[in-house]
């Protein structure tokens, strides 16, 4: 059963402390914070769509490269070894740690892919003036993919491993390592340019009696 939307669309409750408040009109680039708990409630991004889409495309390309070429190589007394991100997870799977292997695969390979896929689909799907509901479904799951996508943590781990191994052997950082560093920055930039509120304002409502979103507010204000 659908809820009745609040009559005034500029009134909202802080997600961290539930304080009811009216959101002021924001200039592009400006942000609003909750007066009680200082949580950032909204930030208007400049040129959000084009920047987010450009960074999502760049991120996807970097992701593909990062997962196809070796990340670390090692030389010791004439013997070589190299590994990719996937190879690290696979080794755990084959050596008695399948669950940790899956966790590594999830946080370093699957979740980043899901994050990039969601963002690409969201930015492409919301180019229309009336945004379809499936974009909303992806936006619901996007924060989960972000929580479990841990490329930056993995990079720190690789750095520590690299220096640990350097005591025994010559370690050669592979191309993928540098691509992953770039990917971390691209993902951060993509996140910073994304403006979900802008999309929510144009989405087709789940409650079809209130399509186009503006209707209930308009009737509420004239009543």
């Amino acid at each position: 059963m659908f809820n009745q939307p609040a009559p005034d669309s500029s009134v909202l409750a802080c997600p961290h402390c539930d304080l009811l408040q009216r959101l002021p009109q924001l200039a592009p680039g400006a942000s609003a914070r909750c007066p009680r708990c200082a949580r950032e409630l909204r930030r208007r991004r400049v040129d959000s769509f084009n920047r987010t889409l450009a960074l999502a495309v760049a991120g996807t390309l970097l992701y593909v490269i990062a997962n196809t070429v070796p990340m670390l190589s090692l030389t010791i007394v004439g013997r070589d070894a190299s590994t990719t991100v996937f190879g690290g997870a696979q080794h755990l799977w084959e050596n008695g740690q399948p669950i940790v292997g899956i966790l590594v695969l999830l946080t370093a390979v699957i979740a980043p892919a899901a994050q990039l896929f969601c963002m690409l689909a969201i930015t492409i799907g919301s180019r229309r003036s009336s945004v379809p509901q499936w974009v909303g479904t992806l936006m619901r799951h996007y924060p989960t993919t972000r929580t479990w996508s841990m490329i930056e943590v993995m990079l720190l781990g690789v750095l520590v491993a690299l220096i640990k191994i350097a005591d025994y052997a010559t370690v050669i950082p592979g191309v993928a390592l540098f691509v992953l560093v770039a990917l971390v920055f691209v993902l951060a930039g993509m996140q910073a340019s994304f403006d979900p509120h802008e999309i929510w304002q144009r989405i087709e409502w789940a409650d079809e009696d209130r399509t186009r979103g503006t209707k209930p507010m308009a009737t509420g204000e004239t009543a």
Partner: protein
Amino acid sequence: MTAQHLSAIEHGFQSCEVCGLLSRPAPGRDDGQCPRCGQELEFRKRASFERTWAFLIAAAVCYIPANVLPVLTTTTATGRDSDTIMQGVVLLWSPTGWPLAIIVLVASIMIPSAKILALAYLLISSQRGSIRNNRQRIRLYRVVDFIGRWSMVDVFVDTFTAALIQLQPLMSVEPGPGLIFFAAVVVFTMLAVESFDPRLIWDGAALHEVTHA
């Protein structure tokens, strides 16, 4: 003071955690669907205290084997050697490697234990309806939420150390039984943070203001 400092729950409004829309459930009901994005709505996350405690206790239980059991086993021509997380930190400690030893020490030993203690404090103080230090408590929640993922660093260190050092019979490194418990601590504390509803920190304050209005 009270008129402006009212929570949505006291006005019968629910705010959607997905799209942020404020809406009111049908009369006599305390759940419904967000009319904009279709998300199931409730005033507070369902069974937040119970779920958070469950994940937190699971994390605390796994914390012991995570620190006692070895996470890496090194096999060389001369024998086998198993290292726990703490021994890994000690091994990293050298005139050049000490900054990394500190990173691993902070991320693997200090953050998980601090997270468990911090969440327990947030749960107990919120369940008692405490209104003291609300701003510090919400800040603590945000810090716990932000730093939690970095504990995974040791899982990745051990993964790639083991994947790379496969030079049988010279030297090989295998993951140890402690690794799964350590990964479980990180995952359970992250799930605990997800289940905790930060608005519960303020509900005591709201009730306080209402009763003293």
